[in-house]
């Protein structure tokens, strides 16, 4: 049916919702039914354009939508019921807010006349989700439904992306209202008040290039903003790095924007970043931050953060600029547009940084690289976690592999050892650090990329936080692989207890873990276990050969810690490279209070 003929047509609220989702190009909704959303589910039942994926917990629905969104670049959509459905979604929403992932979450609500009466399964969803969404709406009139949903998609994907909640009282969904088609063409971007900056001020771009051409020790420091700006931005970044010859490092969220196999790549920056990138951050004279937000995991102690550098900050969100670190050249705009403008202005210049200075800078970097900060030794009969992850990466890199993670040591090792050459293939909970993110995110990524190989690098503690989603994977025959780095400890907690609390491992050992092989079988999937380093490769190959979901229980060295590490409260140039450094740098005083 042509769009114009449905504009203004009367239809049931629930039908309007489905129609609006369809018009927004939605293919998949992750959800869980309940009383308040039954009329919407009834409409889902009556159509077959939008696929519904039934999760096993609403938190899983939001993470799955995040995984779908990050791996495809589309908006992830969630549908949950009122009360507990909405409150269960809160962790996922906060996660999406922190990591700037576009998600539209439709929540059921009790009928309007019962709102405020403590009705069954009532929660003040708007009040609860206000601080953990980019924006939220309560729809009180079926005639506003279509317009509100269109606007929710606009807000979720525009500017700095984020989660948007639309709260839908049951009576509104059951009444008839007029449909409104989505604004098209130029109107699509013309919201009344919300019009985030897209194109940066040319004057600021000029100032950026002024600094760049006169730099002696320049460094690109990129983040998730480049990924959010689309694959074109990553391409421009790669070209710009090639043309300038500047070294580049990235945050956890930005991995893959510049290929890790590229010659200028220094590895990840931050608390568990590489020695060379942290030293380069500390020693650079011009820092070009594109789409990163000077997170405390990156900066370490602000007092000592990159003391000698002029700082450029490109960010689409004005409030990110000068929030943690005061910068010299702020550039407000889309990372992709800004990169293009910077590249163009750079090419137009005839001056270039002094070759001698750049040579000396690269010599410094090579010296730092020679420390080989990620080295480990795989000897004996126990599997080193780094070895397992490195082998996983080596054996899967030829496939279109998506890596998701939970949160903890395994996450940092995955970030260090999986070298991403493409954007959108690395899905991890960066800002919020949500244990239980990886499995549902893998499910979402697999839905969005049916042919991809999706592996959740997990820890045995994190995976238990959303283990129920295995059932979802099995139901939809999603061949996700769960690669559990099992050391029987909440490894990162244990590592901190070792560094900060005298090795008193309070509650960080998990007793009574399930037998993950049997657990896999109980869910109707394949379970594998590996304990011998010599068998790691074969097990990974076996995992890849199985056309279905698999759990691999990798039993690893229980005491291995994640290095290198910037201890709390320290500067970038005071990294711990391994356990032998621990004695020299005791974390005391204010550093202990930091998380």
């Amino acid at each position, binding site marked *: 049916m042509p769009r114009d003929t449905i504009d203004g047509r009367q239809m049931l609220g629930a039908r309007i919702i489905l129609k609006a989702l369809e018009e927004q190009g939605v293919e998949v909704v992750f959800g869980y039914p309940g009383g308040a959303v039954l009329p919407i589910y009834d409409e889902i039942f009556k159509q077959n354009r939008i696929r519904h994926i039934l999760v096993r917990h609403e938190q899983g629905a939001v993470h799955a939508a995040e995984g779908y969104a990050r791996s495809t670049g589309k908006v992830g959509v969630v549908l949950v019921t009122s009360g507990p459905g909405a409150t269960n979604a809160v962790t996922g929403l906060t996660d999406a807010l922190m990591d700037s992932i576009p998600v539209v979450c439709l929540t059921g609500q009790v009928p309007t006349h019962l709102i405020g009466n403590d009705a069954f399964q009532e929660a003040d969803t708007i009040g609860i989700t206000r601080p953990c969404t*980019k*924006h939220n709406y309560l729809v009180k009139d079926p005639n506003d439904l279509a317009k509100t949903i269109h606007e929710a998609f606009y807000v979720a994907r525009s500017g700095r992306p984020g989660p948007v909640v639309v709260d839908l009282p049951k009576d509104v969904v059951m009444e008839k209202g007029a449909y409104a088609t989505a604004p098209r063409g130029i109107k699509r971007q013309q919201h009344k*008040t919300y019009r985030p*900056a897209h194109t940066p*001020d040319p004057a600021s771009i000029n100032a950026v290039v002024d600094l760049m051409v006169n730099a002696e020790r320049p460094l690109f420091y990129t983040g998730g903003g480049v990924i959010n700006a689309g694959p074109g931005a990553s391409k421009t970044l790669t070209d710009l790095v090639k043309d300038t010859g500047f070294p580049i490092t990235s945050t956890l969220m930005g991995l893959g924007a510049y290929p890790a196999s590229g010659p200028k790549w220094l590895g990840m920056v931050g608390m568990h970043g590489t020695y060379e990138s942290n030293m380069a951050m500390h020693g650079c004279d011009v820092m070009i931050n594109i789409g990163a937000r000077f997170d405390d995991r990156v900066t370490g102690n602000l007092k000592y953060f990159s003391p000698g550098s002029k700082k450029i900050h490109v960010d689409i969100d004005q409030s990110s600029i*000068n929030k943690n670190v005061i910068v010299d050249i*702020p550039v407000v705009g889309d990372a992709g547009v800004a990169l293009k403008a910077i590249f163009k202005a750079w090419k137009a210049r005839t001056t270039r940084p002094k070759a001698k200075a750049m040579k000396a800078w690269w010599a410094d970097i090579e010296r730092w690289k020679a420390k080989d900060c990620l080295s480990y030794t795989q000897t004996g009969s126990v599997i080193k976690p780094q070895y397992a992850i490195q082998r996983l990466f080596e054996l899967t890199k030829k496939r279109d592999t998506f890596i998701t993670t939970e949160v903890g040591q395994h996450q940092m090792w995955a970030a260090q050892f999986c070298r991403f050459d493409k954007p959108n293939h690395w899905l991890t909970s960066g800002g919020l650090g949500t244990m239980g993110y990886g499995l549902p995110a893998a499910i979402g990524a697999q839905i969005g990329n049916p042919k991809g190989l999706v592996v959740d690098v997990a820890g045995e503690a994190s995976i238990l936080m959303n283990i129920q989603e295995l059932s979802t994977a099995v139901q939809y025959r999603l061949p996700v692989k769960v690669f559990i780095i099992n050391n029987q400890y909440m490894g990162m907690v244990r590592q901190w207890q070792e560094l900060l609390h005298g090795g008193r491992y309070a509650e960080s050992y998990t007793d009574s873990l399930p037998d993950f092989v049997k657990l896999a079988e109980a869910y109707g999937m394949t379970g594998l276990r590996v304990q011998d380093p010599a068998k790691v490769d074969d097990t990974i190959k076996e995992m890849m050969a199985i056309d279905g979901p698999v759990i691999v229980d990798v039993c690893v060295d229980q005491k291995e810690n994640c290095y290198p590490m910037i201890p709390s409260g320290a500067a970038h140039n005071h990294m711990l490279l391994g356990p032998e450094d621990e004695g020299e740098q005791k974390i005391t005083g204010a550093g202990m209070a930091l998380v």
Partner: protein
Amino acid sequence: MSSNIYEGSVPVSVLKDTDVYRHTIAVLVDNEAGVLARVVGLFSGRGYNIESLTVSVVDEDAQLSRINLVTSGTRQIVEQIKAQLGRLVPVHTIKDLTDEGPSVGRELALVKVDGTGEVRVEALRIGDIFRCNVVDSAPDSFVFEVVGTSEKIDAFIGLMKPLGLVEVSRTGVAAIARGAGGMVDDALPKPKATPKRKKATKKVAKKASPKRKSAAKKAPTSSKKKR
């Protein structure tokens, strides 16, 4: 709110100033449920100060509300507050009245003073000096209505304390820029894209504190006109 200004004109030295300044910020927002909660939640969630906050519908068809807030913080914090407010979807326009030229701010207070005899006469006499209206009078009490800057009201309340002060009700500050021209609603289509804002940001560099002092001094003289 759209904000695409090149803020390089706020010098690093100004942002690094660790002194705390008081700023009055006017915000035009959609007049819809929950907007105030968004603004207040932003302040409490991020640990910013609110010294005073007033809200009211300001247009004929009740579509637009104006929030006047008085906050204090370092320059970096104040810039953060404005940027954070700018991210809120229902926000039309933000104007830092302290930064963008001279402005006037007024508050109204109802001040109840109990007493008889000499103190009662003294209270009335001081009320007269402050150009108060007596809006309620009982044999042993007065309710004064006093209008002026927050400082003037503070001073009046201070004087009433030994004279039987029992209760104070204050409205919070309503503020507006001096001179011609109104606060532009950024949501309305612009006649022409003139880079007006650049000038405003340059003023930031000159620092607002002396200006603010002079504005405060001027304030009491114009209080009667407003009544």
